[in-house]
């Protein structure tokens, strides 16, 4: 519950300080080959350590999920923050992604007189890929960064320690509601992105290029199966857990004052974006 990094006192900073070089100048640089090997190994080791930390936090979160107390109000607040407050951003980006995708698809399909399939391509790509991925990236940029900052500030100002001393499990109080909100609200955001994106694509296709609206709708209805939607929603749920967990991890274990919180926020957004794209591939392999 309370494991992991905490704010550094002078004692621990001293403990972390590198040993000073010997005064007789006898310190030798390690051989080039050894340094190259260390540098090569450092990246995968850091990656594995990060995955391990995330897995441990997820495990603790699941454990705390089955233990009382259940704080309904905290869950609702987290869902409101991650979901409701992201509606405008998701809707806006959804509309323009749909509009620009429609422009590109029609422009491309015109070359071999296949504009009629615009609805099919856009419908499928939104349901399976664009809606969950873009919604996740938008929510991560807005809510993920805010979560990392909030939890990071709480960590460096001892508020998380204060929770522990009051016998309130910080993972249960701070991480669990946010992860559950990510799991439940991201599919809703993906669905919204889907609808608004299709509307944007439809508007461009019919109003700018004069495509037949009925045909556009018919092609979407005909070619986009519930399976495609399920694939998108499953991805969104996975992304929701990933981005909230990464944001919580970065904030929860932040250290080093204001600069550390800034770094945590930065990492939360970058790591989330990478995780979304990697997980997108992984989840897709289960469906195709």
């Amino acid at each position: 519950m309370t494991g992991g990094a905490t704010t550094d006192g002078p004692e621990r900073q001293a403990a972390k300080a590198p040993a000073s070089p010997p005064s007789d100048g006898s310190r030798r640089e390690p051989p080039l080959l050894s340094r190259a090997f260390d540098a090569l190994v450092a990246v995968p080791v850091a990656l594995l350590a990060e995955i391990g930390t995330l897995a441990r936090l997820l495990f603790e979160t699941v454990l705390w999920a089955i233990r009382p107390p259940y704080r309904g109000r905290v869950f609702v607040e987290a869902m409101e923050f991650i979901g409701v407050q992201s509606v405008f951003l998701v809707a806006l980006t959804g509309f323009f992604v749909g509009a620009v995708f429609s422009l590109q698809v029609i422009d491309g399909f015109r070359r071999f007189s296949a504009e009629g399939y615009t609805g099919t391509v856009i419908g499928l790509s939104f349901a399976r890929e664009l809606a969950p991925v873009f919604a996740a990236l938008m929510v991560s940029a807005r809510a993920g960064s805010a979560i990392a900052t909030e939890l990071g500030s709480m960590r460096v100002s001892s508020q998380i320690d204060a929770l522990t001393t009051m016998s309130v499990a910080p993972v249960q109080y701070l991480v669990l509601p946010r992860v559950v909100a990510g799991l439940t609200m991201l599919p809703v955001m993906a669905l919204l992105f889907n609808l608004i994106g299709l509307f944007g694509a439809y508007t461009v296709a019919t109003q700018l290029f004069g495509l037949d609206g009925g045909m556009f709708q018919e092609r979407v209805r005909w070619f986009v199966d519930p399976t495609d939607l399920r694939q998108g929603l499953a991805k969104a749920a996975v992304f929701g857990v990933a981005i909230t967990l990464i944001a919580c991890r970065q904030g929860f274990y932040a250290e080093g004052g204001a600069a550390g919180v800034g770094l945590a926020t930065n990492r939360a957004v970058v790591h989330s974006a990478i995780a979304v794209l990697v997980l997108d591939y992984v989840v897709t392999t289960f469906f195709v």
Partner: protein
Amino acid sequence: MSDDEERKARKAEGLDPVHVRVVDLKKSYDGVEILRGVTFDIRRGVINVIIGGSGAGKSVLTRQLLRLERPDSGRIEVDGTDVVPLNDWELVPFRKKFGMVFQFGALFDSMTCFDNVAFPLREHTRLGRKEIQDRVMQRLEDLRVAHAAPKLPGQVSGGMQKRVALARALVLEPAILVYDEPTSGLDPVSSRLVDDLIAETSEHYGVTSVVITHDMASVFKIAARVNMLYKGRIEASGVPDDILRSENPVVRDFLTASGVAMR
């Protein structure tokens, strides 16, 4: 009757004068030993002060005392029970015995001062809205910060934040109150007010107080027992007069540097 027999007899009556016993506590970070076998007692119902310079291990010791971290070895006996081997779940009843006033208050900045003080009651009791309101306002009035109730922590002064933090620590009526550097960052007048507050709280609520500080003016004003931490060990223990008269060179150096003793 020997000291040990007397202690056992008083313990049987629930009056063991030792509230918390720390035995041979060790803690390292990255192979560097910060606590090197700390042993001392926290006496029941009085103000116990732990002094020491920067880097002596005070903050690390506080974190072990509250079991925010698990020590590498040693024992921390609270009312006779060793809390070191306990897991987070088993620690809950012990943590409820402690109240903690952090160096900078550590108030939740998204909540009003009222909600900060009400938080432990909402988490750990089934009190109704009216009872919580009454109890929180009573604590805030006792500490003369009732007017801060509707404000956010960021809207009140550092001294008031400390009072609100103390109200939050006291609201569940803990048996042991730990203060981490309570006067740090305050002007001399506010520091003495905080000292008075600690003394009043100890007397009024009868709690065992543990004050971690290097403010020597505070020490000689409020302490009943003093433990000096130096390089991860307890260098000296006793009543304030024992410390003041100590011939231990480390203690002398510390007192001299603090301006409370002549070389």
